[in-house]
Structure formats: structure tokens, C-alpha cells
């Protein structure tokens, strides 16, 4: 019996790890390597790293730092941020990052998603979409760290990306990011019911029940979270945590 995955999602900025609220106010958490070691000791299901300013600063992925991370980590790793060529993908895969997360470039050039899947296999290609609800209650996909509106409906984008050969979808709610008030379950549900491929829900998790809701109500295959695994208490003190195998049974 397979248990849905619980995935810490870690944000890289200027070589440090940060955590945002609604994609703003990045708070510095610490050195990525130290934090990754703690997650490795906790035997997490999977880790996702997103370099949140690589695209805006027109940078390539931070390969050196990622090489350090992969030599410490013995779990599946996903990376997103600034990936714009097959060479980037090749370099990431050879470092031991097996999930390539595309966001802005998948929107700019859908054909690249197909090329990436042909090169690394669909299981290696994750499409990330950052979604915001507008005043009329309509969902819209944003890129460039939530700064650039695309006019795209997330469900349409999801279906198109699946058709291009994406193997997974990472659906992040900008409105819920860092709030710890629970996932946008309607958004997760809409996307997961429109595609066959696994959906990773992100944005808003604050407690174990939220993770379970993403799976059971939202229909996601995996629940990702940031704040919940790096902060403790109302003052948001930095403390790394992760559900024990017993606690994770709530997801079944």
C-alpha cells in the first residue's frame, strides 16, 4: 500500500533558505546544507527546492550548491528555478536531482516540456504553477515569483502540460503561501480531477489535518509544505520538524 508523500518545499534565495508569506517578505531560515541534513536525518519522503529569484535575475540553477545538497541527500529531490535548456536539465539529472521543475519556461515554450520529457522521461518533469484568485473569484496562473500574470486558467494549463508529457504537477496557491490556514482545496480539487498525472498540493498547510485534506478532499497525490516544517509557535521560531511515520498514517 502506497502512502501519499509529504514533501518539504524549500525556497532558495541568495544561497540561503527563506520562507515567504504570500510570496512576499522572505524570512531567512539558515544555511541550506545544514537544514537539508536535518531533513535527511528525519527520512523525509522527498524534498523540493525552488530558487525563487533565478528567473527574475536571469540566472542559471545554482549547480554548485545543488551538488553539495545531493551528496548529503538520499531521497528524491526536485529542483526548480531558472531552467531554460536541455543542458541545464542534463546537468541537474547528472547531479542526482531527478525531478526537474519548470514554471515560467513551460509557459513561454510548451514545446520545451515535450523535449524535456523525451530527454529525461515524463517522471522527471514536474510543472509548477503559482495560482492566485482574482476579485471575481477566477483562478489565474502567475510566473516570475508571482509577479507576472499569464491570463491562463490553471485547469487548462494543467491539461495542456499533461498532454506535452509532464509527469507531475506542483500546484501552489499564492494566496495561501505561508499563511498556515490550510490549502486552497477547491484549486487542488479542480486541477487533480482534470488530469491523470499526480498532483502535489502546496501553499497553506499548517497542521497534519491540512496534509490529509489535500489528499482526501483535494485529490492530490502528495502534500507539500514550507512553514509547517520550518517554523514553530506563533512567533515563527525556526525549528525543523517533519511528521513521524505514525503521524503520517492520517494521510491514508
Amino acid at each position, binding site marked *: 500500500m502506497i502512502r501519499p508523500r509529504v514533501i518539504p518545499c524549500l525556497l532558495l534565495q541568495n544561497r540561503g533558505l527563506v520562507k515567504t508569506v504570500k510570496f512576499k517578505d522572505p524570512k531567512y531560515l539558515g544555511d541550506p546544507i545544514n537544514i537539508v541534513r536535518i531533513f535527511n536525518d528525519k527520512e523525509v519522503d522527498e524534498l523540493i527546492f525552488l530558487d525563487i529569484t533565478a528567473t527574475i535575475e536571469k540566472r542559471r540553477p545554482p549547480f554548485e550548491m545543488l551538488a553539495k545538497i*545531493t551528496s548529503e541527500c538520499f531521497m528524491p529531490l526536485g529542483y526548480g528555478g531558472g531552467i531554460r535548456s536541455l543542458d541545464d536539465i542534463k546537468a541537474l539529472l547528472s547531479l542526482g536531482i531527478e525531478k526537474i521543475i519548470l514554471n515560467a519556461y513551460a509557459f513561454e515554450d510548451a514545446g520545451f516540456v515535450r523535449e524535456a520529457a523525451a530527454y529525461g*522521461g515524463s517522471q522527471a518533469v514536474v510543472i509548477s504553477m503559482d495560482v492566485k484568485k482574482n476579485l471575481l473569484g477566477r483562478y489565474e496562473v502567475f510566473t516570475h515569483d508571482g509577479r507576472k500574470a499569464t491570463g491562463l486558467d490553471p485547469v487548462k494549463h494543467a491539461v495542456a502540460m499533461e498532454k506535452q508529457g509532464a509527469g507531475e504537477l506542483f500546484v501552489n496557491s499564492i494566496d495561501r503561501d505561508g499563511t498556515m490556514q490550510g490549502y486552497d482545496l477547491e484549486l487542488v480539487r479542480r486541477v487533480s480531477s482534470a488530469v491523470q498525472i499526480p498532483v502535489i498540493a502546496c501553499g497553506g498547510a499548517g497542521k497534519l489535518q491540512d496534509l490529509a485534506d489535500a489528499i482526501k478532499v483535494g485529490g492530490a497525490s502528495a502534500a507539500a509544505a514550507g512553514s509547517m516544517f520550518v517554523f514553530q509557535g506563533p512567533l515563527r521560531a525556526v525549528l525543523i520538524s517533519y511528521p513521524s511515520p505514525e503521524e503520517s498514517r492520517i494521510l491514508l
Partner: protein
Amino acid sequence: MIVIVDYGVGNLGSIANMLKKVGAKALTSSDPDVLQQADKLILPGVGAFDHGMSKLNERGLVPLLNHLALEKKVPVLGLCLGMQLLTRKSEEGQLSGLGWVDAETVRFKFEAANAHLKIPHMGWNTVEARRAHPLFTELEAESRFYFAHSFHVVCHDEEAILAGTDYGYSFASIIGKGNIMGVQFHPEKSHKFGMKLLENFAERVA
């Protein structure tokens, strides 16, 4: 010395990292001279079956690998797609596999009751041993491994199934016949459980 066969497919960095962690001597190569000297071989792999086979063919490695595996009886461990390549053929492609085990590779096919299960089978799952094997030394009962695959191996020779895993039904997740072994999951991405299994391959498989 363990040689991780580098044919341009798979997560070589992670496998090498983990072998290093358990203190095994290993290197990554596609050089026939290096392969000839291997005490053991690891055949990695991710992605599509035909892509994997054509990469092996392009590098002209198949006759040498056949010699090492079938005549010299060098222990071989196939990982994920690497395990599927050990079979005769796959529903995923047109090319012949290595055919070292009497098996073929098929796509997950669920009955109506399990139609909700997503393909690929992606995530952590347990394995149920069917028989004793050096690969299982000191592996705890609740060992879990990371899987990411849409196709799986069907053995015509029941004896070759070392362990099964449940996803809609039980499929062969670890196979072994003589010096040929394969695991459908990614031990290099499976924490201490995968590390133990790779350590067993390095130290306890003769």
C-alpha cells in the same frame, strides 16, 4: 570494484554517492576495459525502455555486457529501468531487451475497483520477500523504498521473484536468478533502507 554502467541514462551521481557512503569501491564508466575489470555491475536507468536499449546499443555495450553477465557470471544489479532492461521485451517499446531473465515488462493495468490508482506508481512502498536472499540481510520488516514507474516486470519463472510489492495487485519488485538481480525501486533514493540493500549487494552478494 563495482562499476556503475554509464550509458547516458539514469541517476549515476546518486548511486555513486550512496556507494561511497557505505564504503564500497565504485566507479562510473562506459569504457569496455573498465567494465572488464568489474567485480560487480550496476545497471541504472530511468525513462523509456527503447531509449535505454538504444543508448546501450549506440555505445556497443550489449555484446560485452552479455559476456560479463552470462559467461563470466559477474553479479549484476539492475535499478528501475535497468531492471526492466534485463527482460526480453517491454510493452513500452519495440526493441528487444537484454533477455537475461525469463520475463517481460508490462504496463500497470488495473481492474475497475482500482481504476482510481494513478500511473506512474510514484512514492514510497514496502516490499514483501518471497524467499531468503543475501540482498535482504538485516533489512527490517517495514523497510520502504521509493518507486517511480509506469511499467513493471512479469516473470515467467516464479523462482526469480524475490519480493513483491502491492499497487493495485502484487508485482515483482525485486527479482534475482543466479548472478542477475534487479529492483524496481530506486535504492539510491531510499534512505537507510536503500543504503542497506546496496551495501548488501556490495558486500554480501558473491
